[in-house]
């Protein structure tokens, strides 16, 4: 439907089509402009299609109309369709690129920025929640299967813990990063900004980037069910540095400045903390299977879990406040 409309506008107004790409480098608002401008009915303007000042006129009309259209459409499904404007091949390509750091091209600039979507992030988060819940239960079963005494029961409520953790990470961290980048961007002088071709990423782009960066944990979650300590830890390290590497490579041109080292530490550290937290909380319960009688070990393991949760909470607070 969208493509049909853009085709119409293209055939009638080839000169106008360049306008959305002018605001291309800007962030979320720019993206909203390009999205809604394809829905604009330009047919009524075709009478006076001569003159050089047409673009300026159209710009003025367009900005007015965009605001009206955005407010008008806000409660309709069509307003949100631009966030889901992807094909199967796009999503597959983005998934592939988010897992393995590729040669020289910047993942954010070449893949996300032209068309950031919310389909991938949302369904990756949902899939991750349920794959962690399912494989966490499988891991728990494998731990207790050897001892016949312990009657194993599955725990549905892992879903709620995993969902809280993942959705908080995938929404709050990009939000905090976006705010921090915006804050430090103002303090920078404008000449440097002009020389640099990289603009600060918009919120939507960061959400998309972070959502896709979680996709590597889905296969890793199923591999975590194998109850070998060093394998679990090496999977944590591997997953963190593969997808964290893509994250850093994409964001490194943007975060130049004196806070650079802090940004790098926060981005990688949060990623590592998330992976280690998943592994320790959902997959790694050594005390229950080996010694079911000893209450001390159980108590200590729950204590470590609590400590890990507290550490995660602290870092959430820290990241939002920074």
């Amino acid at each position, binding site marked *: 439907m969208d493509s049909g409309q853009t085709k119409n506008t293209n055939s009638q107004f080839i000169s106008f089509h360049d306008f959305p790409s002018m605001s291309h480098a800007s962030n979320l608002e720019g993206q909203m402009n390009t999205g809604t401008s394809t829905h604009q009915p330009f047919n009524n303007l075709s009478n006076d299609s001569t003159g050089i000042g047409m673009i300026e006129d159209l710009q003025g009309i367009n900005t007015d109309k965009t605001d009206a259209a955005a407010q008008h459409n806000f409660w309709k499904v069509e307003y949100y369709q631009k966030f889901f404007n992807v094909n199967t091949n796009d999503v597959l390509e983005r998934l592939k690129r988010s897992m393995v750091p590729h040669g020289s091209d910047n993942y954010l600039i070449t893949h996300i920025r032209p068309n950031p979507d919310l*389909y991938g992030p949302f369904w990756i988060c949902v899939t991750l929640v349920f794959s962690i819940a399912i494989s966490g239960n499988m891991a728990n079963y494998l731990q207790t299967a050897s001892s016949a005494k312990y009657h194993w029961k599955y*725990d*549905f409520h892992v879903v709620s813990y995993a969902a809280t953790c993942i959705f908080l990470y995938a929404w709050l961290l990009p939000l905090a990063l976006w705010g921090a980048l915006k804050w430090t961007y103002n303090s920078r002088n404008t000449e440097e900004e002009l020389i640099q071709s990289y603009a600060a990423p918009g919120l939507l782009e960061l959400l998309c980037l972070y959502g896709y960066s979680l996709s590597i944990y889905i296969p890793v979650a199923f591999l975590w069910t194998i109850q070998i300590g060093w394998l679990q830890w090496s999977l944590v390290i591997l997953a963190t540095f593969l997808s964290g590497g893509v994250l850093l490579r994409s964001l490194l041109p943007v975060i130049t400045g004196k806070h650079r080292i802090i940004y790098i530490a926060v981005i990688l550290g949060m990623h590592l903390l998330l992976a280690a937290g998943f592994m320790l909380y959902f997959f790694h319960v050594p005390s229950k299977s080996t010694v079911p009688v000893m209450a001390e070990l159980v108590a200590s393991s729950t204590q470590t879990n609590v400590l890990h949760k507290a550490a995660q909470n602290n870092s959430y607070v820290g990241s939002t406040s920074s």
Partner: protein
Amino acid sequence: MYDDVTYTVDPQHIEGEMTIGTKQKSTTLGEPEFNTLDEPIRDTILRDVRAVGKKFFHVLYPKEKKSLLKEWDLWGPLILCTFMAMILQGSTDAADNSNDGGPEFAEVFVIVWIGSMVVTLNSKLLGGNISFFQSVCVLGYCLLPTAIALILCRIILIVQQTTLLFILRFIITMIGFLWATYASMAFLGDSQPTGRKALAVYPIFLFYFVISWLVISHTT
């Protein structure tokens, strides 16, 4: 609209108006010629029950593609969802160690209804041409194979559990899951533009997968 106009034009033929109105209404909806005003209430209820039963049959035997999309109702989804939530709910009594870790009644309800709504919203956002409640209706009716799998698993769970019986339960649940996914794709698969079919099918797959996980994990 036309009623008002004819009333003002010809106010003394009110009875004639009413019959014309109902006739026009029935012809536009494509329903058979019957009058719901003076029929026994038993017929009315039985007709609805029969419509629900016919939809259940179409889910189990998904040959006609458009059969479930003609008229939507939410009776079937409500019945199935309530039934599954009742069976699946676990007791959270920690006192006598009977905490089986299962979901609450409301949690199953929320997963089924919010899940099917989110899946429907996803296909709407991707540009699918299907109405909201039609899709919710189809997704709800297609829970029937998983509900049947749940009944069979429940019967198997009565006897002492062995590994062989677990494998049997696993196979039954897998068949229910594949059947549900296949049936819902037969009804909803055509509503998506090409190139996005996989993006719309994946959430449906995930929806039934999660419910099947609940079914296989349900123990006494």
